């Protein structure tokens, strides 16, 4: 391994003479599409964010900043958002980016024929759900242009997180003049026109997606990179080998088992960043034994989160007792602090006994989890913790698709689940609202929780809304529909001479901010 480190170091050192302007990224998999309205995956977000620019965007630290809109204003009732587009905004073919382009884009996203799988991201807009369902005409959508560079978005109800929602590709403009000429083939290299810092140069499926700097980008002067190659590194070992061999400059996935070696031998390459996310256990509240809140509480009490993160996972995961990740800004959890573990275990045994599960007739359950990765070790640890209160746990694993198909059909007792995405509390607490649908896997339904959430939805003031959300979280978790466990860590290897790669909870790293030292 010493030899390996030396060879690797010399390979990297060879390029030290001049600053490079190309970047080779292991992107974790093949994009399913580069159409911003049809996208569905994080790894597509990374590429699309380099190609396109929404009304808002994020800076190198992941904070929300103006994008294609230079500024915006919100009406007092929180229902009308007015965006002023940049006068100098241009498509990569020289056409100006206008408010009409955004109107076209939002209508296209929500048209049933587009079959956009993330169309519901824009349901906060007035009329969006009806337009997407085909029950209202496109004109019913609350998005209109008032002049070439002023865009007005009207909401169905106050949604203070709209500026954040607009950073996702579902909110990106698309070039009407190209799509109407090229149809579905508009995303092909040579045809695609975009308004971001880079343009699509080449795309060979399962081989590479290549981008080139867009000289017409409004901030092109600040963009250092000329070429970016995104490689679909679906195999973590292969990605790791290619990084170690100096064939890739940054990778977002590598085998967890290598962390020990890396932190000793290549610490300046290793980036472990907590991701705004929550891993949790969900109980099927519609069937025995977990229709009984006492049983759910007992199992929740027996969990030792610290042990899972510090002894099993060991990559800097953050234990999280609430459903809202602790790193979400501006949110004050109203949950009571937990008691010491012996007291919790005693209480758990008491609750199980009261629910009729005794040492003679112990509770027997099946815990479902997703195959692969470190998840088995976590589930084994959980089974051991439950053994401490006399619960016999059988483990059952399946691939991701099968796992969630089972969960949706209610074919589970208790199961592993996770949620990530936005950096606001509502995104997580939506999960337990009774009419949320399938992602409320355990079919939890609580009138008090629903009422608090409905009040929060109607509240235009952010601070007031957050207070209501915190109340809802405390009321909901008191019934233990889920046991929150921890926030995951994203691990990446990034060449130490790359600048502008700043750790942030969204784990977003726009290539326009990256450069070689």
């Amino acid at each position, binding site marked *: 391994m010493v030899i390996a480190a030396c060879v690797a170091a010399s390979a990297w050192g060879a390029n030290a003479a001049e600053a490079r302007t190309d970047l080779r990224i292991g992107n974790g998999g093949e994009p399913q599409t580069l159409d911003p309205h049809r996208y569905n995956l994080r790894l597509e977000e990374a590429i699309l964010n380099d190609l396109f620019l929404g009304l808002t965007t994020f800076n190198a630290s992941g904070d929300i900043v103006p994008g294609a809109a230079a500024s915006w204003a919100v009406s007092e009732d929180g229902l009308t958002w007015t965006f002023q587009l940049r006068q100098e905004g241009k498509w990569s073919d020289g056409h100006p980016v206008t408010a009409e382009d955004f109107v076209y884009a939002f209508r296209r996203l929500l048209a049933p024929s587009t*079959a956009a*799988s993330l169309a519901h991201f824009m349901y906060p807009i007035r009329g969006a759900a009806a337009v997407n369902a085909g029950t209202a005409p496109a004109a019913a959508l609350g998005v209109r242009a008032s002049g070439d560079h002023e865009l007005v978005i009207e909401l169905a109800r106050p949604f203070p997180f709209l500026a954040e929602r607009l950073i996702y590709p579902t909110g990106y403009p698309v070039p009407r003049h190209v799509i109407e000429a090229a149809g579905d083939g508009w995303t092909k290299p040579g045809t695609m026109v975009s308004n971001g810092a880079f343009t699509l140069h080449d795309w060979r499926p399962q081989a590479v997606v290549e981008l080139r700097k867009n000289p017409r980008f409004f901030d092109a002067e600040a963009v250092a990179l000329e070429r970016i190659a995104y490689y679909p590194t679906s195999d973590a070992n292969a990605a790791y080998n290619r990084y170690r061999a*100096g064939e890739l400059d940054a990778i977002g996935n590598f085998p967890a088992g290598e962390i020990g070696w890396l932190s000793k031998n290549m610490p300046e390459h290793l980036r472990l960043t907590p991701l705004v996310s929550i891993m949790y256990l969900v109980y099927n509240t519609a069937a025995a034994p977990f229709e009984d809140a006492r049983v759910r509480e007992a199992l929740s009490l027996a969990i030792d989160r610290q042990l899972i993160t510090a002894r099993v996972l060991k990559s800097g995961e953050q234990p999280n007792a609430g459903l809202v990740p602790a790193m979400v800004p501006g949110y004050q959890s109203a949950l009571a602090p937990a008691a010491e573990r012996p007291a919790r275990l005693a209480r758990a045994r008491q609750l199980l006994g009261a629910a009729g599960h005794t040492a003679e007739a112990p509770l027997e359950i099946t815990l479902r989890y997703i195959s692969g990765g470190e998840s088995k070790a976590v589930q084994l640890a959980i089974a051991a913790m439950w053994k401490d209160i006399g619960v016999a746990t059988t483990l059952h694993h399946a691939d991701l698709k099968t796992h969630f198909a*089972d969960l949706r059909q209610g074919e589970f007792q208790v199961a592993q*689940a996770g*949620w990530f995405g936005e950096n606001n509390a509502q995104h997580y607490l939506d999960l337990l609202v009774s009419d949320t649908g399938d992602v409320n896997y355990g079919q939890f339904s609580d009138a008090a929780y629903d009422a608090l959430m409905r009040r929060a939805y109607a509240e235009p003031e952010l601070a007031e809304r957050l207070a209501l959300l915190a109340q809802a979280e405390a009321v909901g978790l008191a019934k233990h529909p889920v046991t929150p466990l921890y926030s995951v860590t994203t691990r990446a290897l990034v060449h130490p001479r790359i600048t502008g790669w700043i750790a942030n909870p969204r784990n977003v790293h726009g290539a326009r901010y990256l450069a070689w030292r």
Partner: protein
Amino acid sequence: MAAYLARRGATSLMTLLAVITVAFFLIRAAPGGPFDGERRLPAQVEANLRAAYHLDEPLIAQYGRYLLMLGRGDLGPSFRSKDFTVNELIASGLPVSLNVGGFALALAAGLGIAAGAVAGLRPGRRLDRGITVAAVAGLALPPIVVAPLLALVFAVTLGWLPAGGFESPRHVLLPAVALALPYLAAFARLTRGEVAEALAAPHVVTARAKGLPARRIALRHVLPTALLPAVSFLGPAAAALLTGSMVVEEVFALPGLGRHFVQGALNRDYTLVLGTVIVYATLILAFNLAVDALYTRLDPRIRLGR
């Protein structure tokens, strides 16, 4: 011969149709669908998607629609790779697999037969024993073990060859070796056994008794008959190597057919899985047919048409 081939061709087509039918219904029976993920889609969004891909029709109607499309040489749109058709994906993946597989096949057959012949002509000698042991080891080491080792030693540690990708002939070397090893070993063992056996055959013993030089005996009397089984093994070996290996393509990040197949299966990309299955099945049937035809030429004892 022509009638024989025509009949065999017709049987192959029936087999292909059976494979398509079984694969079509099998992949749809797998739990989960192409649009399932961690985030559940709202009912309306899912309905829009299902309508766009005709998944809202009865299964038998979808099957009929698929066969009609196939008749036009159209493998349909990919469910997962929304910006490509299955035809486009296969056109991009197949050449990569053929390239790596072709190199592996040449390596396996060339080196394997040569090593087997050398060993078989001197049975019991040290060289023979060495080759036999190496061949057993080669058979026992599947690509899933060899490929990561090769990558670790020759790419990561020594830095001689690329660890992955498909950009130059150098990128093909390691995956081809990993892919070839078990087949190289199989060719060597097969040839060695046949050669050793042929050496003991009455006509060879006679030739030797008549004082013919060893070189002439080997080239004229031993090898021609001893190579027949190796030729017939070329068919299945070619089919297996040329269609791409999922393991080797994953380890070396090759954009080949095997990778499309794995990603397609994991994502319930119905059309992509079916498309790759059709390509696999067609190649295997074609190679078997070719070998059968070749065999009838090499071995007059095989009678046609019975």
